[in-house]
């Protein structure tokens, strides 16, 4: 079976990269191909990298509170470019009440503090579009 390719991406100015790096390693240990963007990526850069790297999944990470703008930007760019087959997920410091709107915008799941890495692996395996 072909390995699942995941882009772990830090969007915007937020420098909190602990979660992104831990998740990147956990996905790699679970047998996925992981590309980590590094910090300070614009939504455009992330979508561009996703195309270049031909990924199945994008995982966005943000703790600054700008998720409503920046996560939504990425989701919209994916739609614009017809990349509906990419599974888009996110994590970080995100209030419960924002989760519904983010899901409406096209982010399949939001993982908050206290999520186990197994949960994320499982979600990707179950939901990745083949």
């Amino acid at each position: 079976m072909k390995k699942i390719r995941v882009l772990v991406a830090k969007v915007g100015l937020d420098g909190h990269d602990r979660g992104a790096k831990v998740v990147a390693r956990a996905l790699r240990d679970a047998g996925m191909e992981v590309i980590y963007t590094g910090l300070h990526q614009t939504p455009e850069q992330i979508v561009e990298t996703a195309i270049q790297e031909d990924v199945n999944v994008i995982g966005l990470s943000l703790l600054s509170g700008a998720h409503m703008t920046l996560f939504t930007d990425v989701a919209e760019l994916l739609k614009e470019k017809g990349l509906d087959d990419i599974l888009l997920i996110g994590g970080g410091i995100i209030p419960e009440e924002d989760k519904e709107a983010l899901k409406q915008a096209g982010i399949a799941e939001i993982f908050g503090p206290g999520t186990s890495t197994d949960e994320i692996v499982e979600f990707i395996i179950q939901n990745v579009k083949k």
Partner: protein
Amino acid sequence: MFKEEELEKIRKQREEWEKLVEDRIKSHPERKEKFTTLSNIEVKRVYTPEDISHIEYTRHLGFPGMEPFTRGIHTTMYRGKIWTMRQFAGFGTAEDSNKRYKYLLEHGETGLSVAFDYPTLYGYDTDHPMARGEFGKCGVAISSLKDMEILFDGIPLDKITTSMTINGPAAILWAMYIATAEKRGIPKEKIGGTIQNDILKEYIAQKSFIFPPEPSMRLIVDTFEYGMKYVPKWNTISISGYHIREAGSTAVQELAFTLADGLEYVKAAMERGLQIDDFAPRLSFFFNSHNDFFEEIAKFRAARRIWARELKKLGAKKPRSLWMRFHTQTAGCSLVAQQPENNIVRVTIQALAAVLGGTQSLHTNSMDEAYALPSEKAVRIALRTQQIIAEESNVVNTIDPLGGSYYVEWLTDKMEEEAYAYFDKIDALGGVIPAIKRGFFQKEIAKSAYRYQKEIDEQKRKVIGVNCYRAEEEVSIPLLKIDEEGEKRHLARLRKVREERNQSKVEKALERLRKAAEGEENLMPYILEAVEAYATLGETCGVLREVFGEYKEPIIY
């Protein structure tokens, strides 16, 4: 500290006890094979005078306010003055944050601590494209002196001290603070506070860097020099382990990397020709306080002892130069989203460790911070937690009450020993900056962060409500909402500042700053001139970006 014959008696008794233990665990095994601290230091069943028999009281511990300051930097500690209760706060517009500061002061806070939003941390004005979505989200937006004036409106800057978490553009925000005070008739000699201004830990952990390391170090030494001459009550740096810890390091790594950074700044300032006793008294520190109660206390005690010893080696003579004064914040990364009220208990334990570790100021996190910035109610509980420790628990009655505990003294030594092992590794890599460029710290931290997460995932470490004692419940705590209209008001003010200021004065000031940056002069006077003329943060920092360039980090995970 113990006589030979006494130690001999203890040894004999220990052997008897070990037999008892052996019998006991045959029928009742212990809960775990190995007990460890959060830094993975193995902890023995019990500690006795044998474990600390090498300690000489006067040399290793001493009295509070006396070398090596293991027991505290002040002779009377909290009997004289309780630590400063300083809650890190800031969001939305300058008006919103000003209101929060007044709320905190009304409820008994004793110092201010400013959180800036991401565009400000990176030296961008709010209308920069990279600022999209970030206005006021994790701090207050400050784009010009005008915003700074509003932020401190009605707050007595000659009476209250202010800490500002700002690094890349620290010199610029500090200049705005100085200008704000002076416009109100308060001379800069009278203002007190702290700028974080610790760029090394930005490369290592927090990642809000702007310029490459070399010009960043120059700017920092500029602030040291300017501070000691003109703003003598200001702490021109807060050398921070907090963010290193939050990024996933262990307590040992936090201790070692922070002190290595500190020594790097001292050396940089000495290379400039500054006298160590002129600037060292204005160096301050900032640590994390996590869940491992005794390990945290040992860390604080070891930090003071190492710092005093190393500064002395570098030639410091004044006792004040040897003081490690530090702020502590409870561990944000220990807060969980599940059953958030439990976070109050975590914060209490962590805050108590900071107090027993002899902190000079303290921030206690709010229970709702795994979701958002704290609501008023949550932040009041956090402040009350400190007040309860200070006023009700009586732990402040005697200094360093855990001094002499066999375990705490042993662990203090152990932390120190492990920190020195890291110092050797860093030296072998050519020092802190070469080690940063090779990703040494980043790799070490990523490894620890991953190990910690794995331990939780595999149930080796329990986190209540997360991997055990879970409860299915709706979280119903009120969260802080940031006024969406604030951004429009802020942007309108920024436009007005640009329209109404004396344009040629701004241009001249920025040009003079550029020339100075290309040379070797101290940049503080030029930065002050620019911000006083209402050059914006983005414009001022932009000039430095053009001269110094921007840093790109190696990608490591």
